[in-house]
């Protein structure tokens, strides 16, 4: 069954604005990851946050994780037209050989120049 669900489904903002995307999940997790997919391309890993972490930064990206609410948010600051893409959250249930990621349906972000 699908684990992560992103919100909103689509987001359109002006260049320079911040973009906030949310992800909720249902079962306990080991880690949560965010990926970006440009049109017609494969997914690219952005950031991973573990279940014992609350916040993580990478460049213009900030990810938070609230395990009590089973939710995460991805903030992209000072957005650029090149940030236009689909963004997916993925939850990892365990480590080890049979661990797998379960992806949400994705959020389509459009950044207007």
């Amino acid at each position, binding site marked *: 069954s699908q684990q992560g669900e992103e919100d909103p489904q689509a987001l359109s903002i002006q260049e320079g604005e911040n973009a906030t995307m949310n992800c909720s999940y249902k079962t306990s997790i080991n880690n949560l990851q965010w990926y970006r997919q440009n049109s017609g*391309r494969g997914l690219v*890993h952005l950031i991973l946050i573990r279940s014992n972490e609350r916040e993580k930064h990478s460049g213009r990206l900030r990810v938070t994780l609230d395990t009590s609410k089973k939710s995460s948010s991805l903030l992209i600051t000072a957005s650029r037209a090149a940030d236009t893409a689909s963004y*997916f959250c993925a939850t990892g249930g365990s480590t080890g050989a*049979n661990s*797998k*990621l379960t992806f949400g349906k*994705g959020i389509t972000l459009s950044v207007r120049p």
Partner: protein
Amino acid sequence: DTAVSQTPKYLVTQMGNDKSIKCEQNLGHDTMYWYKQDSKKFLKIMFSYNNKELIINETVPNRFSPKSPDKAHLNLHINSLELGDSAVYFCASSSRGVLQETQYFGPGTRLLVL
């Protein structure tokens, strides 16, 4: 120096045909995956191999058969193609160390069954 590569990039074929998609990674990873992304962009795992051994096999029809000749390659063979098989198929790889669950994706194979 592509990390995860797939061939072909596009595949258009008739219903009932058999086709194969190939995947290779040069990252030295020990785990490889096949995902299917439908027209609504929903990405679902199909198979996972660790050191050439099948470890994840989701509820995928028997018409789909993965094969891993070595750690760097994972191929997907599809028999008797159906219209519903039309999708984008992504290969991915990762290292199964305790702290390394990040997956690296190939560019995808766009399959259209007519």
